[in-house]
């Protein structure tokens, strides 16, 4: 496909070619000016955002790293001890438990949610319409319930006497909320995590599917592909960059899980440790011990784990490549 065909204005192209053979100085100057503007344009587009990125992202992160290098003592004052916080945090006896909890949680939550997100989005997109729109809303709403209200909601969901899921809980032989939580903490948290997080991603993948070029999909149907084949061989590969984005974001979110265990711990006291997850341990350092150096060290260690996985995904999927000639 040439540019003129796409533009649908043949004279522009032929005109340009004819003139290029006999260049005029005025035209050359205009072309040069336009090239310069094209070189400068991206900087203008990113500048305002870059300002916020530095001010509210990079600067505080660097400062956080800086605090992690100092220890704060009521007697000795603030001292520069680059390895103390990091060493104490990484050898904290609670970290091993938290890390194991989080690993179990991520292993249960992440794969099942990824499959569910793409399954639901692709099935919804097979027949867009009012029903699909209503379903997207239904899937989204649990994620919008946060904070104390979420604690109340999920406590009731796991209490067999009052839960709408009581037949299911009876089936599992669960007698009360405490029992439900103590025996199956990672499973219940993973189910909560899916209910809370899947809806947003379903929206995003659906929006991506809705923006796919219609002619490609129509061509596949005309070629005799079933809706299953269209979904798996045409639609999914076209939105694969979203899969990479979801993998990066959900892995980071999973390793930083905080809301679900905190919420459940509020509802069912004594069954879930206040340092169940790694991120909770970081908050514990900051809020219970007032030790911000340690909190920063552990948070940044979590960031590093997420970053390693993210860069691996980015490298494997060529996520940052600029595509030339998509069509």
């Amino acid at each position, binding site marked *: 496909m040439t540019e003129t065909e796409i533009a649908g204005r043949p004279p522009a192209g032929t005109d340009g070619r004819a003139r290029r053979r006999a260049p005029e100085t005025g035209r050359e100057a205009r072309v040069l000016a336009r090239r310069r*503007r094209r070189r400068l344009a991206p900087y203008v587009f990113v500048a305002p955002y870059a300002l916020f990125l530095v001010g509210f992202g990079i600067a505080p992160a660097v400062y956080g790293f800086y605090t992690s290098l100092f220890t704060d003592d009521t007697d000795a004052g603030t001292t520069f001890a680059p390895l103390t916080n990091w060493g104490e945090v990484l050898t904290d006896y609670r970290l091993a438990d938290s890390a194991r909890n989080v690993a179990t949680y991520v292993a249960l939550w992440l794969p099942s949610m990824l499959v569910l997100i793409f399954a*639901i989005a692709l099935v919804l997109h097979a*027949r867009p319409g009012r029903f699909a729109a209503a379903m997207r809303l*239904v899937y989204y709403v649990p994620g919008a319930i946060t904070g104390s209200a979420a604690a109340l*909601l999920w406590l009731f969901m796991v209490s067999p006497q*009052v839960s709408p899921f009581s037949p299911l809980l009876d089936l599992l032989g669960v007698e009360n909320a405490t029992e439900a939580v103590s025996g199956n903490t990672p499973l219940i948290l993973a189910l909560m995590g899916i209910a809370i997080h899947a809806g947003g991603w379903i929206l995003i993948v659906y929006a991506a599917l809705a923006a796919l070029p219609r002619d490609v999909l129509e061509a596949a149907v005309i070629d005799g592909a079933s809706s299953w084949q269209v979904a798996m061989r045409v639609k999914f590969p076209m939105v694969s960059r979203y899969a990479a984005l979801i993998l990066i974001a959900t892995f980071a979110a999973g390793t930083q899980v905080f809301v679900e265990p905190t919420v459940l711990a509020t509802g069912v006291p004594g069954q879930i440790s206040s340092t169940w997850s790694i991120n909770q341990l970081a908050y514990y350092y900051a809020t219970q011990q007032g030790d911000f150096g340690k*909190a920063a060290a552990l948070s940044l260690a979590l960031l590093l784990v997420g970053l390693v996985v993210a860069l691996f995904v980015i490298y494997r999927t060529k996520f940052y490549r600029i595509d030339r000639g998509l*069509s």
Partner: protein
Amino acid sequence: MAVQTTTHGAGRVAGGSLRVGFLMVCAVFFGLPVVWLILAATKTQASIFSDHPLSMGSLGNIAQGWSNLLTFNDGELVGWIWNSLYYAGSSVVIATVLSVPAGYALAKYDFAGRKALLVLTLIGMIIPTAALVLPLYLQMNALGLLGTPASVILPLAFYPFAVYLCYVYCTTSLPDSLLEAARVDGASEAALFFRIVLPLSKPIIGMIFFFSFVHAWTSFFLPFVMLSDDRTFNLQVGLMMLLQSTDAINAEGGFAALPIHQPEAALAALVAVAPVLVAFLFAQRYLTASDVSGAEKG
């Protein structure tokens, strides 16, 4: 031929009911907690335990619950709702204006610093809030902004996830051929962005609007740290304070004298969710507003 059509049709019906069945099972999983929450708001403290989980109380209980919620600090709840709308509304506008051009430029221009910006944005996206909030607190303190709306709005307006959404959308759904064609036609880079990219990016702008709204509306830890006067609280921080000082969540905790129990907590949750639903319905309209392939054929 006729036979073939029939089997094909039968397969389609079977596939259709399978599809609807799958979606309905998922709807039960996601929807049942919400249905329960709505019903809980119609019940009384006693009937929430004694009646069937999916039975309905009376609508009068909702009105009663609302006036019970307003007994807390002379209806402070209403002020929190306005604060939340103000903080979230301002940060959404800034976040959208910042992230759409940035995501587009990162996707469609090759420029020095592009990869660095992408990686730094990635770090901003996945960095734990705990690592940022305390330094932000000190930063706002140094700027003398602590306790002001700006101390909440500005950090919330930095929403790197929106940049990535726009970046992925532009790389996936915005053909280069289209942009080149417009350049050949003599469009300036600004005209390209405003007249071609923006109209074609409506679905993702709707998504960015929606997600940055939810991000700001549900934010808890940042306003919790930045704001100390309870009149400036947003709804999330306010509700946490309200519910923890009553016996709605913790039976041991606080002022049992206030008539705020589980039904009121359920109602408070619904009040907190309602604007998200409105934003959803608003963003929904943009979802299918674009068709790049049609534009390409011009």
